[in-house]
Structures are given as C-alpha cells and as structure tokens.
C-alpha cells in the first residue's frame, strides 16, 4: 500500500517504508505477541516486539501523514498495540491478584494507588485493562486474517475459474450469509466449545463469505485485463495467474475492507466472551471484564467497572474504523 517509492534521498523512515523492512517490523511485532498470548511463552519473547512496534508506528505515521483521519486511527490502534507488547514490563500489579475489593478510582488502599480502582474481587482495573487488550487484539487479528486468507482464496477461484466452481462457492457463501452472524457464532461455538481457536473458526465462517464476494467481484473485473490475457497466452497455470497476476491487484481495496472488519471482529469477540462463549477466565480480557462487571455495575457507584473495558473496546474499534476511512480517503486521492 502506501509504501512510498520516494525519489528523494531516502531517510531512515523512508528506507523502513520499503516493503521488506516494513514487513520485517510487522513480523517482529506480531510473531512474539502471538506466541506469548496463544502459547504462553516467556515474557522475554516480547522484548524485540517493543521497539518494533514503536518503529512501525513511526513508519505508518510517516506514510499516512496526509490524512489526519488515518493518523488518529493509527494512534489509537498503536496505543493498544504498544500496551499489548509491553504489558509484562510495565510497573503494574498482578492483574489476577485480589487486593482490595470495591476500591474506587483515584484512591489508595494498602499503600497502592488505584488509578482506575479495583473490581469486585479486588483486582486492579488498570492492570486488567492493559493486560486485557492482548487477547482481544491477538485473537481478533488472527481470526480476521484467517477469514481473509480463506475468503480471498475462494473469491479468486470463483471469480477466475467461474463456471461450476463459481456456482458451488457462491451457493455455499449465500447459505452462510443467510444466517444472522450472531446465530452462526453461537451455533458454532456451542458445538465446538468455547476457546480462542474456535473463535477463529467461527469468525472465518461468518466473514469469509462476504470477503469471498468482494474478491470475486474484483477478480471478475480484473481478469478481463490484457495482462491476464498475456499470461494466459503464455500458457501460465491458473494458479500462477490467480496468485501472481490477480492477487496483488485486489489487495488494495481488500486492505481497506480488512480494517473495517477488524472492528466488527473485535466487537464480535468481546460480545462472545461476554456471553461466556469465548475466552475463559481467569486471565483478563475486556469481554470478561464487562461480563463480570455487569453483575455489580447495577450500582451507579461501581459503573466504572463497566465503563473502563467498554471504553477500551470502543477506542480500539474507533481506531480501526478511522484507519479504514483514512486509507480509503488516500486511495481516492491518488
């Protein structure tokens, strides 16, 4: 995307904006975080991720500097990303340790100052909020990514090979799309049991059909271009044409859509966890925090327990949506 191939003498940030360094940074941030959250690796793995995240923010900021919308979105998203990778290194109390129940925000108890108070079990809200973003982000992004890989693959096949392939894939997609999303989630997770990996499966089933349709439409348009004919008349294998000739050209519109969908997925995961169908206690998670707070937050005094995780989710989703808007804005300008 907005990887600028600047003609001017490249500074550090421009050099980092080239595809290879940018992707390296992304992996340096993402792989440790995923290993840490999904497989409970030692917190040392997160060490390289912290500088990578900061550099990546700088690169993204530089490339999107023309759109203030995108900049605000980026800042929100990267704030949470930075919290996610650096949580173990921040001076926070153990998020699972009950200390003093029902401590209000900005008050001190047992020589600890609680910025955001504690929950009904006496666990530090600030610490839980920061640790809680890890699971939402990791599972949300992973689920969206898997849905995109599968949706794009089927979209390319349906669009490019058409005929029977298209009929079958489109039919299946329409069947899946005819279920309300939440019903689909609940059915799948009830059947498979609640866990992070099953959330990925559920999100894929729910999102891939729509992604498939978008990619299929783009493919139908692009496959009539002369460069695709040129590849066909060279006798290229259909797989080569789909991956090398078509995929890079459907990428642009898909990335915008992916940002939006990240927002939906975050909502979905939080909702599922709230319903008890997603990630399981005791580890902190925004959805869980809302679920637990719902029992006690009836009292106005304790509504902060609900407000903190709810606002956190909102800022992350807002970040994704603003990023999508900014990206679209920028792609329209060129």
């Amino acid at each position, binding site marked *: 995307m907005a990887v600028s191939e600047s003609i001017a003498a490249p500074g550090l940030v421009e050099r980092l904006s080239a595809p290879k360094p940018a992707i390296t940074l992304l992996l340096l941030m993402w792989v440790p975080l995923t290993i840490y959250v999904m497989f409970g690796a030692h917190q040392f793995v997160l060490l390289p991720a912290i500088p990578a995240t900061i550099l990546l923010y700088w690169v993204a900021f530089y490339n999107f500097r023309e759109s203030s919308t995108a900049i605000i979105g980026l800042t929100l998203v990267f704030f949470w990303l930075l919290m996610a990778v650096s949580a173990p290194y921040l001076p926070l109390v153990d998020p699972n340790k009950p200390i003093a129940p029902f401590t209000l925000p900005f008050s001190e108890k047992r020589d600890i100052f609680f910025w955001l108070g504690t929950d009904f079990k006496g666990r530090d809200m600030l610490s839980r909020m920061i640790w809680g973003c890890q699971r939402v982000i990791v599972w949300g992004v992973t689920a969206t990514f898997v849905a995109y890989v599968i949706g794009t693959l089927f979209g390319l096949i349906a669009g490019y090979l058409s005929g029977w392939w298209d*009929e079958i894939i489109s039919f299946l997609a329409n069947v899946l799309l005819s279920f309300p999303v939440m019903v689909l989630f609940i059915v799948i997770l009830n059947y498979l049991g609640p866990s992070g990996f099953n959330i990925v499966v559920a999100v894929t089933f729910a999102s891939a059909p729509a992604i498939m349709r978008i990619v299929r439409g783009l493919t139908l348009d692009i496959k009539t271009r*002369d*460069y695709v004919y*040129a590849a*066909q*008349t*060279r*006798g*290229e294998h259909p797989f080569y044409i789909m991956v090398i000739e078509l995929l890079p050209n459907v990428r642009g519109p898909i990335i915008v859509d992916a940002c939006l969908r990240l927002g939906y997925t975050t909502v979905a995961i939080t909702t599922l966890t709230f319903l008890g169908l997603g990630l399981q206690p005791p580890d902190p998670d925004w959805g869980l925090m809302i679920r637990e707070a719902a029992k006690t937050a009836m009292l106005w005094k304790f509504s902060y327990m609900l407000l903190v995780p709810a606002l956190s989710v909102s800022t992350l989703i807002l970040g994704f949506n603003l990023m999508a808007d900014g990206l679209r804005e920028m792609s329209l*300008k060129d």
Partner: protein
Amino acid sequence: MSDQTPVLECRNLSISYYTRAGEIPAVVDFNLKLMPGESHGIVGESGCGKSTVALAIMQYMGKNGAIVGGELLFEGRDMRSMSPDELRKLRGSKIAMVYQEPMASLNPAMRIGDQLCEVPIYHDGVSEREAWQRSAEMLAKVRLPDPERIMNSFPHQISGGQQQRVVIAMALLSSPKLLLLDEPTTALDVTVEAGIVELIRDIADEFGTSMIYISHNLGLILETCDRLTVMYSGEAVEVGDIHDVFDEMRHPYTRGLFGSIPLPGADKNEHPLVAIPGQLPLPHERPKGCNFGPRCTFFRQGVCDTGRLRMHSVPGDDDHRVRCERFQEIDWERDLPKGEAKPPVESGDVVLSVDDMTKHYVIEESGFLIFGGEEKTVKANEHLNFSAREAETVAIVGESGCGKSTFAKVLMGLEDATAGQVKLGNVELGNLPVEKRDEKTISRLQMVFQNPFDTLNPSHTVGGQIARVIRKFGVAKTKEEVDEIVFRLLDIVKLPRDFAKRRPRQLSGGQKQRVGIARAFAGNPDVVIADEPVSALDVSVQAAVTDLLMDIQRENRTTLLFISHDLSVVRYLADRVVVMYLGQIMEQGTTEEIFSPPYHPYTEALLAAVPIADTSIEKRHIVLKGELPSPSNPPKGCPFSTRCQYMMPGKCDVEAPPIRAFGREGHEILCHLDPTELQEMEPVIKKKEEAA
C-alpha cells in the same frame, strides 16, 4: 464579415485546475474568434487542453477548475460577468455541447422522445404535442430512420451511432448559435463516423450554426472546419485558415504532426514516417520558453528558451498566426522531415495458414441456472482462408464486431475453432487450447495488446514482467543471463535500462506499449499478433511505436498479423490486407490491390470513410446507410447486403456470394457483382487535378 460581431471570442484566456499537487495551468493565453456560421477546429494530443477550452466556454469547470485570466465574450458580452441564471439560460438555448460518449448526455431510464421533448417545452414553452412534433422532425433531419420508433425506445436500445445522432438532434432542438463538439465520433466505427461527419457538415449549411469541433484527427478537421487551432501542451501554437495551415504550416509541431501520420504516399520502405521524438510534457513540467522546445529540431538556445512566447502573424496573412520564435528563419521547403528509406524485405515461406476456419459461439439467452433459455449462435468467424509468410505483415481490417479479436483468440488458444484448421508450420492449432500446447508452440506465437493501460500488470516491475517471459520460454535460466536479455530488449524498444526497475504507473502510454512489444518479442516468436497496438496512443507517439514494431519485425523476420480498423496505418505498413465484415473475409490481396480497383463494395465504402489530412487528395463520398448488423443476427446471403449500395435484391439477400479471383497473387473478392463490374469501379482516392 469583419463588421459582424463574433459569436464567440476568447481573449488571452487562461484556465487552471487546482489539485493536491498545486495549480495546473491547463490552458494558457488562448485566443479564438468565431464568426457566425463558421466552423473552427481545435486539434491536439491528449491532455493539451482541448476539452478544457470547451468546458470553459460552457462554464462547466467543475469544483477544482477556474478561468484565471482573460475574457470570454459570447456575442460581445463577457460571460464571466453573467449571473448563474443568465448562464444557465445561455447554455440551454444558445450554446450546446456534444460529448464523445453519447450516453453521457442521455438519461438511460427515460424514453428518447421524452428527453427530446423537454428541450422545446422548457425553452420555447410549447405544448407537449407540438414538442413531440418538433422532436420527430429533428430526428428526421439528423437522418434517423423511423423517428417514431426511436422516440419510443430507451437509449440502450439503439446503436452508438444512433445515440450520437439523437444527442446532436437534442442539441439542435434549442437552435443554438454555437455548437461545441468534443470528439463526437471517436467512440464510433469508421463507416458510422463518416455519416455523422457528413451530418455535422450539413448542419453548418442548413442551420447556420457556428461550431467548435474538437478532435485529435487532422483528417476529420479538414472535412468539417473552415479554420483551425493547433494546440500543444496548453497553448495554441498555430491558428489559421484550414488550407493555409494544411498547405503552409509554419510551426514545427504542426509539421511534425503531419510528418507522423500516414498519408497516402507514405510507405514503410521508401517514405517511412518521421516520429516526433520524446513525449508531451506534463503541465507542471513544462520547459521554460517554448513548450515544444525539447522535442523541436529547430530549437536554439537563447531564442527558444527565454520567457513566454507570443503569437506572431505570418507575413502576408494576418489570420495565420504561430507561436514560434524562429518560423521565419526556417526553410519550410528544404527542411521537410524525411525518413530514411529502407530496403524492402523479401517474404519467405508460409508460416501460418488458416484453412476454412470457423468459430461459432453458442450463447444462452436469459438462461436460468442450468435450465438454458433459447440458444443462439453468434457466427464470429465464418470460413476464414488466408495465409501469412515469414517476415510478412498481414493486416486484418474491419470494424467492431467483425471477428478480428475472436480470430486472435483462436490463434492464441484461448478459444477452440468450431471447424477448419489453423496451422502454424505443421502444428494444428485450431483445436489445441493453450494448456495443451507445448512450450515451443506457445513461444512461437505472441501478442501485443491494444490498451496500454491494461497491457502491463500494475503490481509488478517492468523488468520482472519481461523476465517472466524469458524464463517461461526457457530462453535463459540464470539471473545474469535473464537480466542481460531484459536490458537488451529495453535497448531495442528504445527505453532506458533503469526502466526495468520501474512500475507501469510511472510510464507514459507510449512507453508502456513499448514494454508490451518487448515482452512479445522476449520469447523470440515467429508470429506476433498486434491487436490495434497504437490506436490508443497519441498521434505523435503512434509513428514511433509503429516504426519500432516494424524494425524489430524486419530484424527478426517475424510474421506480423496487424489487426486494425485504421486503413491509413494499414496502407502504410501492410504487405497484404484481409478485409473482414461480420466474421467473413470480404476481400484479400496485396496492399496495392486492396487500395485500387477492383474493390469489394465494403472496402470501397471503408476507403471513402477514412478521413485524410491532405488537401491535395480528392475522395469520392460514399456514406453507408444503416448500422452494423449484430453478429448474432447477420443478414441472409451476403453479410453486407443491408448496407451495400450495389445490392441486388433477390440475389444478394438470398444467396451467399461467390469468391471472385483477380490477378495471380490471390486477390479475392466475395461478391455477386460481375468481375467486369468490379473491375470498372472508380478509384476512391485521387490526386486533385492540378488545373486549378
């Protein structure tokens, strides 16, 4: 005439667009005086500001465009000081515009009659009955058959040529003083275009409307206009009476333009075209001084690159003005651009032979899932017979829907032939789809595509796309070897080597097309099919790309199948010509045989339809009636029978015509007319008698 008020006058008009990159001066210091009844042509290449001038006159500049200087007088009144209300009235009743795309002016969801009626109802306040009456009359005046039927149809139910006639009728209904036509025929086929051009010419005579006719085609301007402005990169560079400009051009760019279009007499061996070197500057990259400077052979430092240039009058002719500092020093007779003559190439053995090849498409109409509706056969190619030799250029000529592209697809293995054979050497290709062809066969046959914006994958580098072909066809394996060949190919197509690392969007149309040519020749093919390779390019770039294509062909002794609708280009470069109409070959023979009698009636009409930018040429006028029939529903008997002026009822529309052979070289005409009748046809194009 001079005591009349001009209908329109532009004085030092400057127009800019404001974009993210800053102000783009699209038109600078533009002057124009249009007298009542006069037709003024504006000619120039893409992006030179022709449309901007027209839009400024209409005051439709959009959000980001504005007139930044000068005056714009309509019948002596400054349009810039008029209120929006006055402007709206003016636009509806006194100025009308016709665009390139007829559908841009028509509402797809409204019956044509209703759209037409709006004009007299709104402007003259007449009753609905009367408006309908007038509309029908106007449709008849623009020579649409059966006006009542057309009034009751929706725009998509009539053909492109008919749509454009409707748009013109709509423009004329308000009896405007000024008609602006922006490339009104560019989207149409040549024979349809000829009809519209004739109509436009008659409008000037019949209604006394003044016209501004915008086109990139000098021939069309010659056929329609009295005066002419040549524009280059936002400036008028030469203005004058059409004959003065055509016969005594005084600007190096105008001269270059004429040198790069194939006029009768140009010949790829003896008188090759002379391309203007370089390419158009972008508006924000214009040089200091003369915009044409970097491409001009007469450029002189200190004269041409000092500040803004002014228009100068040509001595002895106040109406003829040029924007060139050195026009009086140039010897216009001696310094004619001349290409180097090249020895003709001897063609070798037959490489490709097409034997009775037929391709039918079966389409299902309004099918529902697998339960097909009515089946229909489209006869895209019917009994094609011809052959091409080594190092020979065979042109396939025809209008849209004649089956040119289908033929290319069968050849390339993207479609199967329904019957007959296509042989490359001794390999039968007709029923060998590309997946089943071996590497060797595939690499022998390559293609150059029409649309420069589509021909390269925007996501990959130029070098990478050429390299893929080299690897795929096993020309070279190691990275060094492949790179070496890529560089050599870039040298051959005259592009700098560092273009290998660029992406297509950093290239101009002409440059992309050159890469497309390099890619086609990367696998050392024996046969290259070029499907309208230059028709989407700017005139001054076309010649360079055409020449390049032919030089490489000459070098490698490649067989070139050149698909085109442009007979001027075909005459220039083809050795043999195949004329197609609705999927059938109407005539084939050597280029000379095609361009002189005996003609097939269709070839004759096609020749007469091509506008020629040469005042010393006289052309017979033949305007075909009707439109191209749909290939899914071709006429019985001779496919041309619905439009042919020699049509013999009872014979041509019943029986398929026989092939008449002439000469020894295989000149064949598919027609019922007697060979002697065919032989007695008059030449379409003649040099004018010198007597006058």
